[in-house]
């Protein structure tokens, strides 16, 4: 069982609905990425997001992972929950290291992501029973590795 503290993230200032809040706690955890036989990335802060069906990472990481061209991956057009224009995402097979655990997945890379990484259902939630406990200060994330594949 991995128990990891959530991290704070700035809110719009001033927040129209929560004017006294400077930040909120978010399920952001550190992971490392590995592609083929290249050394792992540095630790990067990624958002746990059960709303995303895949793991997504910023295209800027590809160079250091040994992926020569982001666009060489398998292309899919992505939209958000608002009616934004669709954006291209390119899938590459990578390993994601979470503390002492790891999993392999086809993850999407995009130049348009506004975060370094999103840990979604395919890959992350398939491998970890995930609990977010926001009752305390700081809130925390509990990850139970699923071993029965």
């Amino acid at each position, binding site marked *: 069982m991995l128990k990891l503290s959530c991290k*704070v993230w*700035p809110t719009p200032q001033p927040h129209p609905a929560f004017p006294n809040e400077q930040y909120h706690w978010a399920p952001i955890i550190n992971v490392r990425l590995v592609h083929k036989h290249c050394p792992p990335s*540095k*630790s*990067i802060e990624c958002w746990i997001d059960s709303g995303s069906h895949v793991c997504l990472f910023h295209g*800027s990481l590809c*160079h250091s992972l040994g992926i020569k061209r982001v666009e060489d991956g398998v292309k899919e057009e992505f939209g958000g929950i608002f009616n934004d224009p669709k954006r291209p995402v390119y899938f590459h097979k990578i390993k994601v290291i979470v503390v002492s655990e790891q999993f392999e997945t086809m993850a999407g890379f995009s130049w348009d992501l506004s975060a*370094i990484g999103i840990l979604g259902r395919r890959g992350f939630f398939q491998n970890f029973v995930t609990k977010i406990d926001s009752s305390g200060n700081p809130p925390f994330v509990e990850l139970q590795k699923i071993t029965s594949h």
Partner: protein
Amino acid sequence: MSPEARIKALRETEPGNWVAFSHDESKVVARGKTYDEAVAAAEEAGEPEPVITLVPTDWVARVF
């Protein structure tokens, strides 16, 4: 690093840039316009194992 110090560090970063925290996340060690630049600057600053994050182009509330 306290929540307030982390928020200050993030807000002080140029929008769209990358921040490198020390391995124990107690301080900011470097910033850069790209992931590679932030990592290189962190290593130059004596931090071989930084924790990297990306500051968005604005602080609008987001749903992913």
